[in-house]
């Protein structure tokens, strides 16, 4: 049986640190964030597993392309986002339908001031997935990124190629749409 991956010191920051640090440590620190993004963006555990594998392998291969003006986490996110978006594009799924639906929900009079109530946490994943899939790719991605407390609005803005103010505005609408949809998934 294989030895479990060791998890030594945390590897973050500059390329120099990377060069002398352990990839397993990096994997341990960031794999949950990348896997979760892939899982909820792609909506399929097997595809998320494949994507996470591919993202970290790409990261390893492109180590020399890492720029020190980004954190390792945002760099990994960038690879993951590109990867997931390419997959979605190749599947020709959801875009037109989801975009039109999201517009309806974000303008709906649903009571989004109420807290999001969850009676059964065991079904939470399914409800979240269903809700996210009802949103546009853009809203879905923004919500998944902002849920990562390690990312600032500025980093999210850089990842999606928009200004921080634009991200804040869209997030406001995305949260509203999410809350409206989530209430319907009971």
């Amino acid at each position, binding site marked *: 049986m294989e030895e479990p991956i*060791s998890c030594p010191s945390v590897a973050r920051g500059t390329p120099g640190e990377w060069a002398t640090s352990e990839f397993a440590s990096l994997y341990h620190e960031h794999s949950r964030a990348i896997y*979760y993004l892939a899982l909820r963006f792609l909506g399929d555990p097997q595809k998320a597993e494949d994507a996470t594998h591919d993202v970290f392998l790409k990261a390893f291969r492109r180590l020399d392309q890492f720029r020190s003006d980004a954190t390792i986490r945002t760099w990994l996110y960038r690879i993951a986002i590109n990867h997931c978006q390419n997959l979605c594009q190749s599947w020709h799924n959801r875009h037109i339908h989801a975009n039109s639906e999201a517009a309806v929900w974000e303008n709906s009079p649903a009571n989004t001031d109420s*807290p*999001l*109530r*969850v009676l059964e*946490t065991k079904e939470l994943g399914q409800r979240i997935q269903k809700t996210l899939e009802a949103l546009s790719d853009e809203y879905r991605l923004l919500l998944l990124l902002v849920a990562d407390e390690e990312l*600032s609005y500025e980093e999210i803005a850089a990842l999606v190629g928009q200004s921080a103010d634009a991200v804040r505005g869209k997030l406001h609408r995305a949260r509203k749409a999410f809350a409206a949809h989530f209430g319907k998934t009971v």
Partner: protein
Amino acid sequence: MKQQTKLSQKPEHIAEQQTQSPAAKEFSTADELLRFDAAQTTVPPEIAERLKHSAANIAPSKTGWFKRLFN
């Protein structure tokens, strides 16, 4: 500090998270709900195994530090 920039902002809908029953929870925002969901998510151990095998096919100059970490 970057993290504080985002976290210091008040969520759009404020409501204290509370447990209604052993299996019931309330989340004040989508962010909070997704953070909870992310924290509950387990990364399949198969990914690390696959990475280890994939790394074996990468140029020797790069595998040195990679491989030793997976041993």
